[in-house]
């Protein structure tokens, strides 16, 4: 059995109305994790005692009428790349098996200041370097919809924990789709904010210029409520932005009248599983029925942007892990192959990739002269089976990892905000995700459109 509430808003209302206490809600979350974790393997560390102690403090504050935020007393989780003071932070790797940070990540600090109760650290792909969450050291994370299938990754435990109703929000990190892909495969909502919007301080990095931090939750509204508490300048993160913040919570009945939604058919709507294609078609029809204007747009060479992103990721990830390459036994085969690829790339390729990135950012920005946001599929297929290496799409075989990241990775290169929302299921009941991409720092429009489509 999962939590008695599906959304943060519902839980917050029940807490405010004293229909449930923070301790009771936290205990319900911990009980659900205890029941489900042997099936899903979504958590690496469960923080029972700390969480219950914090929940008790939150209840005392509630009794005094002190409410810190909408997350006050709400059970949440963070991926195991976020440093947690006094609690081990493994990154899903034996290299960090005994790493106990002496500080909290900025995101963890802000969640705690907001009164959220962190119940545990979610499982993930090794070092966040992959999209299957089939971790050779700590076992595979399983998709709650079908436990023979991957939840996506790298934030697979966060996606599984939210979709199974074990917590109301779980933080993920996203370097090439690692928040949006688990959201798509597990059937929840995931937001990758604009580069610089949410602090990376205290997160063990995979990649210095592609990593983004964001929430996975039941819906766009909950992602918006969480973003409101996490967004903002942090001098400890060199990439942190001083761009003004918005009020992200979407209106209850948002109108889409006049909203120009770009549909980039080329690349984004090619080579899709038929049910992904039909689910997206139905979603676009719904948007049109809500009086949005659909605008066909032609994106720049997205395969080029993916190649640029892969060169950057291979180079930066290998640079970060260079000090650990002496003991190859500490890496799984897939991660080791990627790290070796990065070691062989010349520095000139890396610099040229960062130069090309600037060119393609400008090219892609031109799409927003005609549109306010874009809708694309998030993943071209639904969740593959655990251990599956290839997927067949339209009679063509494609590597699971490349297929899974094909539509999500370019958005990390471009630094734009992107949201994955559920928009249907395939014949096996597996979720299909749609991706909403916005202008730089325009999370507000992205979240409002997501909320309207989820409600409509």
């Amino acid at each position, binding site marked *: 059995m999962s939590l008695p509430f599906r959304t943060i808003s519902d839980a917050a209302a029940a807490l405010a109305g004293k229909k449930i206490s923070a301790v009771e809600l936290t205990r319900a979350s911990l009980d659900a994790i205890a029941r489900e974790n042997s099936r899903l393997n979504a958590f690496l560390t469960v923080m029972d005692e700390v969480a219950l102690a914090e929940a008790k403090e939150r209840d005392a504050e509630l009794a005094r009428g002190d409410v810190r935020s909408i997350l006050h007393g709400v059970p949440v989780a963070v991926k195991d790349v976020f440093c947690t003071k006094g609690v081990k932070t493994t990154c899903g790797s034996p290299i960090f098996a005994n790493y106990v940070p002496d500080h909290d990540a900025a995101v963890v600090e802000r969640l705690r200041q907001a009164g959220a109760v962190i119940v545990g650290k979610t499982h993930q792909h090794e070092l966040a370097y992959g999209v299957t969450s089939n971790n050779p050291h700590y076992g595979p994370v399983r998709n709650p919809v079908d436990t023979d299938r991957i939840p996506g990754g790298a934030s697979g435990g966060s996606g599984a924990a939210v979709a199974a109703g074990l917590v109301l929000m779980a933080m993920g990190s996203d370097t090439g789709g690692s928040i949006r892909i688990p959201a798509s495969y597990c059937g929840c909502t995931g937001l990758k904010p604009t580069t610089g919007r949410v602090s990376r301080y205290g997160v063990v990095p995979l990649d210095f*210029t592609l990593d983004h931090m964001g929430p996975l939750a039941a819906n766009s509204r909950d992602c918006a409520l969480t973003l409101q508490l996490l967004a903002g300048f942090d001098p400890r993160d060199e990439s942190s932005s001083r761009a003004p913040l918005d009020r992200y919570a979407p209106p209850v009945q948002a109108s889409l009248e006049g909203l120009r939604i770009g549909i980039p058919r080329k690349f984004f709507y090619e080579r899709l599983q038929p049910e992904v294609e039909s689910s997206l078609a139905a979603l676009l029809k719904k948007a049109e029925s809500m009086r949005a204007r659909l605008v066909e747009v032609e994106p720049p060479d997205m395969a080029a942007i993916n*190649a640029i992103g892969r060169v950057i990721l291979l180079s930066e990830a290998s640079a970060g892990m260079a000090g650990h390459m002496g003991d190859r036994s500490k890496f799984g085969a897939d991660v080791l*192959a990627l790290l070796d690829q990065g070691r*062989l790339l010349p520095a000139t390729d890396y610099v040229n990739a960062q*130069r090309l*990135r600037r060119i393609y950012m400008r090219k892609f920005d031109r799409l927003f002269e005609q549109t306010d946001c874009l809708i694309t599929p998030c993943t071209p297929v639904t969740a593959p089976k655990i251990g599956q290496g290839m997927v067949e799409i339209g009679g063509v075989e494609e590597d699971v990892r490349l297929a899974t990241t094909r539509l999500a990775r370019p958005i990390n290169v471009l630094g734009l905000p992107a949201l994955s929302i559920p928009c249907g299921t395939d014949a096996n009941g597996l979720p299909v995700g749609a991706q909403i991409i916005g202008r730089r720092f325009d999370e507000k429009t992205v979240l409002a459109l997501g909320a309207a489509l989820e409600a409509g």
Partner: protein
Amino acid sequence: MSRDYKALARALAPDIPDENLPGVIGPLEKLEDLFRPLAKEMEAETEPAFVLVLPTEWFA
């Protein structure tokens, strides 16, 4: 002209064992085929997406 990744792999310290090379070189060569032609699009003065900005407080 493609690189001799096998020779480069052996020259690294620590090196990449021969038995690991098939899973390393094949994907890299495919990526190179996509990536290398793109570099020809660039003007000489194109800067990287991220440039060095020295914080003023370093010199205060």
